[in-house]
């Protein structure tokens, strides 16, 4: 760590900042993987980065999940050259709708509702937010709703898979003795 030179304002960073940065980096990486997977219809994507959001939501709460999600949308769009393009606003609307839904969902009893619930509801909210923005701004025509069943089915499918992956990761981490990947290996 270089000591700040005179005239430099150093922002004190806590462990939580580093954690959010690390998790956001993981989410951005998955968002890039997502972007290269070919899709039959624009907008139908696995949304792998949401696995990170779900794990963060369960582990560190809604605030951290919102940070990771927001950073992923902004930084991911910068890396893909989409920043402030229509796709960016659609992604932001989807992420915002998902986070709004996840706030109450995070308070549901854990015993009955797991990551799959959070994932599916967030995925449905995501397409809802996106279609709403598209209807209001990009394609102001009711014909757009013809796509809703397709997007809804995709959200259900990928939402379930992502939720299962997140549940699996959380269950494995809870089970304990698996040591974290040792740094000397890499």
């Amino acid at each position, binding site marked *: 760590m270089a000591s700040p030179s005179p005239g430099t304002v150093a922002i004190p960073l806590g462990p939580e900042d580093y954690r959010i940065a690390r998790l956001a980096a993981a989410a951005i990486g998955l968002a890039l993987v997502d972007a290269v997977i070919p899709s039959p219809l624009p907008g139908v994507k696995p949304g792998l980065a949401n696995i990170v959001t779900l794990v963060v939501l369960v582990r560190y709460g809604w605030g951290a999940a919102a940070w990771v999600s927001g950073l992923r949308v902004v930084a991911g769009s910068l890396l893909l050259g989409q920043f402030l393009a229509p796709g960016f606003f659609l992604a932001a609307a989807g992420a915002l709708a998902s986070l709004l839904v996840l706030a109450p969902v995070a308070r549901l009893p854990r015993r009955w509702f797991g990551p799959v*619930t959070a994932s599916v509801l967030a995925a449905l909210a995501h397409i809802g937010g996106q279609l709403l923005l598209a209807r209001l701004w990009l394609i102001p025509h009711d014909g757009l709703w013809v796509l809703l*069943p397709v997007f809804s089915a995709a959200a*259900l499918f990928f939402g379930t898979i992502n939720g299962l992956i997140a549940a699996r990761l959380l269950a*494995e981490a809870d089970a304990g003795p698996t040591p974290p990947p040792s740094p000397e290996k890499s």
Partner: protein
Amino acid sequence: MARSTLAALSAATAYPWHRLVRPGDWLVLAGGAVLTAASAALFWQQGAAERAVVRQEGQVVAELALTVPRTLDVAGPLGTTVIAVEHGRARVMSDPGPRQLCVRQGWLARPGEMALCAPNRVSLTIAGGKGAYDTLAY
């Protein structure tokens, strides 16, 4: 390598997929499936094409049932537009217009679809069902 595969296998048996889904999750999945089916029923209703409505100068000159194959000549300011009806579909066969847009549109089979021969002031619209769309153009 072999060890990591073994570890992965034992992990897979330790966490079977169905164990990761909690009771409420099934409820949410069922609700999502119902929502998807309902949206499909709501937005994909189409109705059957029943009639071909032919207009000249905005006035209906003929309503042809799509069950009986036939052709119809419509007189306009430029000449005669020929409409053809087959089982479940209709098209503009020929038109005196310079760009032939309505002819090249081909067969129309969905309610709301329309071919417009503007120069000769003739239009052909498919009607029927609940009329999910006012008009469809490509």
